[in-house]
């Protein structure tokens, strides 16, 4: 080749390389003398893992692998290397857009369908709402989690999820796959159709039918090229067509066994590529699931659904079922030969995820199964098993070094690699952060929902990081439970009784001296919450 051509080619290559290649080349690491649990191949008692530029280069027994010259050697004797855990259904980092305040006089339940006012937004992409927070990422690293699927939560068509590696705070760098799936919940609208569960089912069916109709109309049009009126552009249908017509994954969140049956019926009727998430009662319909062969994202939330017999029989039986029966769900599925991933969805406090995995194991789930359900199985379900889910050469270097068995009670994660970047874990300080705020007292709270605003009075008691109390309003007095104050972050649950029906609500937000701000979420949707302290003198 002529020199000038060679030079041009070189310049082009460099230019292209400069634009397209990642910002920097990451260091090389050699983890030596550790026990390695690759998940898809046998355990190596004493081995070496070579990580280069974000990927696993090689794994093997000590002595069999040559340590590269440019490698930073990390002595890992006494530690075990596991693939970073994958949580296949979360709602982390989502910053929801401010809700539009409805103009009074407009709120009116229509007698006719109002398509212009469609409240569903299947086109909503989780990626566009991400606001990753370092403290949260650190917390997840501490429990060994390196990959999360983030999905919007609210509404029947909640939106589209994104798969992220917890490698920092820049969303673009975190994305592994976007979008991943369309998420559908069996919930209802409050002020418009569908406002009932049977309405939601009918609405889903009609939406799928409309997607099929719209898509086939467009194909027909495309074939003819002219002579037919073009259909009105429909963003809703455009958003769901890839999932309904092209059969990309749809995740149905199933709160109870009937939801599972509803999802399977829809899957069957419309030949969907359905995933079932939540499903903490899945063992009760194991036969159906075996036949249907759908991927299961099983939640570690052991609270019996409100519809179940146990919940209806009183608080005592409900608590008993939460302790004794529901934790045995994963092991029952395993025994039935069903493949599933474990998730933290539904857990109010994500750190209780570890505790719940241990409970599931205590109830009979083999530990290797638990590990698989958090590594290779979700990777396979999400279609990323060529790059994640196990320690194999060529895969992304998502790896954790722990000082014991992965789910052991005393085990601590010491080092975390995400995308080949090393994240050391700081030793956790004693339970509550030293700057824990004092939020005990009486507060004046305002809850803002699409229906309007409501004033409430909140009485809080605090003991270290535990918070409990009561929320009083004209609708009654509701108990605040499971409150946790971690630094300035506050979470609690509320069992609200409205007109004889009880609904669980969860609050999460921040406290700042004399204000508390955050979001209250329930099966019905989210509401903005703001409280100001009532000074003692005025009580």
């Amino acid at each position: 080749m002529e020199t000038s051509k060679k030079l041009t080619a070189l310049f082009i290559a460099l230019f292209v390389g400069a634009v397209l290649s990642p910002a920097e080349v990451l260091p090389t690491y050699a983890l030596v003398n550790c026990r390695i649990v690759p998940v898809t191949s046998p355990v190596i008692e004493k081995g070496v893992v070579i990580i280069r530029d974000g990927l696993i280069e090689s794994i093997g027994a000590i002595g069999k692998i040559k340590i590269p010259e440019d490698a930073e050697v990390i002595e890992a004797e006494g530690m075990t290397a596991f693939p970073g855990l994958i949580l296949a259904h979360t709602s982390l980092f989502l910053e929801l857009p401010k809700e539009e305040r409805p103009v009074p006089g407009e709120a009116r339940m229509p007698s006719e369908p109002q398509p212009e006012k469609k409240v569903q937004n299947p086109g909503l992409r989780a990626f566009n709402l991400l606001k990753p927070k370092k403290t949260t990422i650190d917390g997840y690293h501490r429990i060994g989690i390196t990959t999360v699927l983030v999905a919007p939560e609210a509404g029947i068509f909640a939106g589209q999820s994104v798969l992220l590696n917890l490698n920092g705070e820049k969303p673009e760098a975190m994305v592994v796959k976007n979008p991943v799936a369309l998420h559908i919940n069996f919930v209802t609208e409050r002020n418009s159709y569908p406002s009932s569960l049977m309405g939601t089912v009918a609405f889903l069916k009609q939406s799928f039918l409309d997607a099929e109709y719209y898509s086939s109309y467009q194909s027909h049009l495309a074939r003819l090229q002219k002579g037919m009126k073009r259909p009105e552009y429909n963003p809703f249908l455009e958003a769901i067509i890839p999932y309904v017509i092209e059969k990309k994954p749809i995740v149905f969140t199933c709160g109870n066994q009937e939801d599972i049956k509803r999802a399977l019926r829809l899957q069957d009727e419309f030949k969907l590529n359905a995933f079932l998430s939540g499903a903490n009662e899945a063992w009760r319909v194991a036969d159906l699931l075996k036949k249907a062969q759908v991927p299961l994202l099983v939640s570690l939330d052991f609270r019996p659904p409100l519809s179940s017999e146990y919940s209806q029989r009183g608080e005592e039986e409900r608590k008993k079922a939460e302790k004794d029966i529901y934790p045995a769900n994963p092991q029952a599925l395993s025994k039935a030969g069903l493949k599933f991933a474990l998730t933290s969805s539904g857990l109010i406090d994500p750190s209780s995820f570890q505790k719940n995995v241990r409970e599931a194991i205590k109830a009979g789930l083999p530990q290797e199964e638990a590990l698989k359900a958090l590594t290779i199985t979700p990777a396979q379900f999400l279609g990323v098993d060529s790059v994640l889910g196990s320690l194999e050469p060529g895969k992304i270097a998502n790896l954790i070094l722990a000082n014991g068995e992965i789910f052991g009670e005393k085990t601590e994660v010491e080092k975390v690699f995400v995308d080949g970047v090393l994240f050391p874990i700081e030793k956790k300080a004693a339970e509550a952060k030293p700057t824990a705020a004092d939020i005990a007292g009486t507060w004046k709270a305002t809850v803002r929902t699409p229906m309007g605003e409501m004033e409430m009075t909140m009485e809080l008691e605090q003991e270290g990081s535990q918070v409990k109390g009561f929320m009083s309003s004209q609708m009654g007095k509701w108990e605040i439970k499971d409150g946790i104050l971690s630094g300035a972050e506050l979470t609690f649950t509320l069992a609200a009784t409205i007109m004889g029906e009880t609904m669980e609500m969860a609050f999460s937000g921040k406290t700042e001296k004399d204000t508390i701000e955050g979001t209250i979420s329930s099966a019905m949707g989210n509401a903005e919450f703001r409280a100001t302290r009532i000074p003692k003198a005025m009580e």
Partner: protein
Amino acid sequence: MKKRILFFSLIIGLTVSAFFGTEEATTYIAIKGAHIIPVVGEDIPEGTILINGNRIEGLGKDIPIPPGAKIVDASGLYAYPGMIDGYCYLGLSEIGSIAATNDYRETGRINPQVKATEALRPDSMHIPIARANGITAALVAPSGGFIAGQSGLIKLTGWTPEEMVIRSPVAMQVEFPAMIRAGFRREEAPREEASKQVVELKDWLNKARYYQKRKEAAARNLLLPFPEFDETLESLLPVANGDLPLMISVQAEKDIRAAIKFVQEEKLKAIFYGVSQGWKVAEEIKKADIPVVFGSLNNMPPSWEDGYDSLYRNPSVLQKAGVKIAFSSQSASSAKDLPYHAAKAAAFGLDKREALNAVTIYPAQIFGVSDIMGSLEKGKLANIVLADGDLLELRTSVHKVFIEGKEADLSNRFTELLDKFKKRDEERKLEEK
């Protein structure tokens, strides 16, 4: 001699007739041939009841009937005392969902000053319907809030409220928290509420007593200031002094215990109402010697753990423990169903006769009117029901009802509308002829 006897009998006769003859003419009515169930005393398989004016003059197998007495042939029928409803809204509610027709619930928590009988509507369409099923008297009560007001006893005839009221007030109505129930899930309503309410009630009573003290002291000493009139405290005085019983609506086991303790500490007269979980504390209620009026048995049990039949078997457990019980309809439009609550309890263990007692003599005793009603006994008011079978049975029809000696009109809204529209079908039959 004869003249003297005649003279004296005349005097005696005049005195006697003057004594009895205020409203009623001294007419005799003899109900003959009925199977008499007096409730107090033995049944009389075939006997006569002699009514004089508004009272029962006598009853028995063979009693002499004065000449000129109106004879009512009751052969084949059963004679019972008129039933007494232990708690209802007769005359205080017409159409449940229309606020304008409801007058048993005042706004606010503390209303001891309101009297249910002052809102009574004698023309209520529900009264004749209840009367036509053998109910002759009822406790009408206010409801709602904490201290709901004063209840009164009425008879189910009369053109004006004054004519209907037998006695008012009968009790001061107080309501402890109902058991909040969402389906069968019981919310753990903070227990402080009930015991807080006891504290509040004690506080009110103490305030009332102090108010009384100040009034009395001021009455004795002109220099002392006379306290401002306080409606609430004034109305609570009879309760504080032990003259007016408290009728406490209470359901949960813990609340019942708290209520018993309260009543004993304050040395008050009390009646318990509702008492859904009474079966759990039957002994204690018995020891405290507090009578119980049940609410409607047509409610779901307060919690799944209590059992599907808890409200049904509750009366039997309490009665067997020795508690004095009575039933109520807790309604206006279903007041006629009073006997069937008693029968339902009998289906679940209550002795049938005790069930009958609990809608006749026991409520009369509880409300302090057993000297004039509640059973068929000489001297009591002639409140008599003639039925073609067991009064608590569903298929039994009531043929006649006497209230204070006068035969009551049994036509009511149901029969009127039925007759009206029977005419429509009869017209058609005529047309087709």
